[in-house]
């Protein structure tokens, strides 16, 4: 049962800054996912946590212990690697017990009992006497998990553990990890580059880019209230459409369309750091004009004839390409100098070159600063939970 706190954590390799001042709290028993593109510093952060790298600056605490400079074995963490890291010459059982023997802190009976328990939990009893090359990828990862849980560590650190599995197995193992976490309740930090994995697994998700934390939120809040363009475009597939507009008197104006912005409230005000919302742009009388980037997810744009319920405001766009996805039809459109993608009903008859009238969900509009990329407006109101307030205050 462990809370992990990172304070202003920095890691430099020669002249490359891999982790640039990360502040983060991983709460006791939480399943926290760190997601970001490759090179964003997420793996380095995890390795700093494990003690495999030494921090250039900053502090790592586990509960009340400062572990910043300590050896990995003193941190009592278990790590699961992408390539399983099983010793090829040892059986499953030997792999699981090898690290326990190293510390001498377990008796033989204790080891046997724990291995039996872990094997039961992970359903790997029949793999214990096999060597890794006689196991499938999924089986290997189970044994690797067994090795991690058998030591009853204070925290699990997982570095892309599912990335080497095929798609079907990955989905299955995802559910299994969730179940395992529910059962064990051990603090878990899970690193992945796959935003779907992050959304499905994480109770809380940290989005990183360029060595810095971009946003920390539960999955739905990340999707609904991205704090900047990076998060908006990284989370969600297909990515959010970004169109340069001007905001004038509460209306997003583009050469080819005008979209009135519902009067937004800023909720706790934290998600919208740069915004001075009501006065500057949502108020129809404010009149001052500013440039902005309008963000709308493809799934929040529709052909007007599909969704008459969304209101009167529509604009005309030209269909460029259509991509049937099975459960929907992804339509690439252009309007003026802008292009965007839109979700349509499957089996819609939309032909390239055709003009289509487009409507949108007024609750799902976002505006970003053109220079900094910071969000300053969401048309929906962010939910205020004590949970979230606490975390944001902590960070």
């Amino acid at each position, binding site marked *: 049962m462990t809370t992990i706190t990172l304070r202003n954590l920095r890691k430099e390799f020669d002249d490359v800054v891999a982790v640039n001042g990360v502040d983060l709290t991983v709460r006791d028993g939480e399943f926290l996912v760190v997601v970001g593109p490759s090179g964003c510093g997420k793996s380095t952060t995890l390795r700093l946590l*494990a*003690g*495999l790298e030494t921090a250039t600056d900053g502090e790592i605490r586990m509960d009340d212990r400062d572990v910043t400079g300590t*050896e*990995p*074995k003193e941190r009592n*963490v*278990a*790590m699961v*690697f*992408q*390539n*399983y*890291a*099983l*010793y*090829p*010459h*040892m059986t499953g059982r030997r792999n699981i017990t*090898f*690290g*326990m023997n*190293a*510390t001498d802190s377990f008796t033989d009976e204790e080891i046997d009992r724990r291995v039996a328990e872990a094997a039961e939990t992970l359903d790997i009893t029949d793999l214990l006497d096999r060597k890794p090359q006689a196991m499938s990828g999924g089986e290997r990862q189970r044994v690797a998990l067994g*090795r991690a849980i058998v030591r009853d560590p204070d925290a699990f650190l997982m570095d892309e553990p599912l990335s080497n599995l095929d798609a079907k197995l990955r989905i299955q193992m995802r559910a299994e990890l969730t179940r395992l976490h529910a059962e064990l309740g051990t603090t878990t930090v899970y690193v992945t580059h796959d935003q779907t994995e992050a959304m499905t697994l994480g109770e809380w998700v940290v989005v990183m880019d360029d060595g810095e934390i971009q946003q920390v939120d539960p999955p739905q809040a990340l999707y609904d209230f991205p704090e900047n363009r990076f998060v908006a475009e990284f989370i969600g597939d297909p990515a959010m459409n970004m169109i340069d507009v001007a905001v004038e008197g509460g209306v997003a104006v583009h050469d080819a369309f005008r979209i009135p912005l519902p009067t937004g409230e800023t909720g706790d005000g934290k998600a919208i750091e740069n915004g001075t919302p009501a006065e500057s742009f949502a108020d129809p009388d404010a009149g001052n004009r500013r440039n902005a980037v309008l963000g709308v997810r493809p799934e929040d744009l529709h052909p007007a004839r599909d969704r008459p319920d969304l209101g009167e405001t529509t604009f005309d766009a030209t269909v460029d390409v259509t991509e049937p996805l099975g459960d929907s039809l992804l339509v690439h459109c252009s309007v003026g100098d802008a292009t965007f993608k839109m979700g349509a009903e499957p089996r819609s008859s939309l032909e390239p070159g055709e003009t289509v009238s487009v409507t949108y969900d007024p609750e799902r509009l976002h505006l970003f600063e053109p220079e900094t990329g910071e969000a300053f407006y969401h048309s929906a109101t962010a939910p205020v939970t004590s949970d979230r307030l606490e975390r944001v205050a902590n960070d």
Partner: protein
Amino acid sequence: MTNAIQYTKRRFEALKGAIAGDDEDEPLAVIGREESVSVHLQLWLLVGMVVFPILVAVVVSTKQQGIVTSLPDLIPGTYAVENYREAIVDYGFGRFMWNSLLMSVVVVVGKLVISVFAAMAIVYYRVPYKDLVFLFVLFTLLLPVPVRFIPLFQLINDLGWGNSLLAITVPYLASATTVFILRQHFLSIPNSIVETAKLDGVGPVKFTLQVLIPMSRGVLVGVSIIMFVYAWNQYLWPLVIIDSEANQVAQVGLQLLQGDVQGGQLSWSLVMAGSVLTLLPPLALMILFRKPLLETFAIQQK
């Protein structure tokens, strides 16, 4: 670096395929029967040329006189046992072989142990200047025996090691090639496995004995064969430093036989028996362990 490892791995696979004879793989070239026959014929011819001299040696070693002046004389004789016995017992070849074996085994074991130590330090220890140390070891590739055997001769005699097992083993113990191959292999062991050991707090001794060595079996066998062949086939240095027949190695023993046969005191069949004897140990090891040997060669050439 990763590329290099991938490259090495692919070489591994390629070699494995070649050794296993990989009959399951469809031959890439869909070759016609005629062409196929021609390839086989050419191979038979060339293989014949490569093997012929040794076949002659084997045949002659079974004959009474060893006078073979025309191809029809190449029918095996019946004096094999007699000839080999005579070479081994009467002409001291047993002694030479034993000396060679002793030298080779000491060199292999000694080199292997100290090279594993060195590669271990170079790969797994965080110490300053270790790249320089590695370069220092690698630089010895420029100093083969012929470049330094004259001062080495003086040095060994000054040490009082002349004519001893020490003289023909110790100077061979440092090996740039072995350290290099082991280092390359250690670098190809996945990082995460090494890191798992660190997370578990596995110490250097346990790591070496239970992780590193079991994961390096093939390479250790491979470099051992390379080192054995190298040590066994040494000629110049033992010739120079060993001056008593009792301590001489098989290679130089052959030279002694040759002197006798040139002087007319010895039949060629005995010389050929000695040659076959000298060839057997390295050849047997090579054929027996050809798989790890070839895999190790694949590492050597970066």
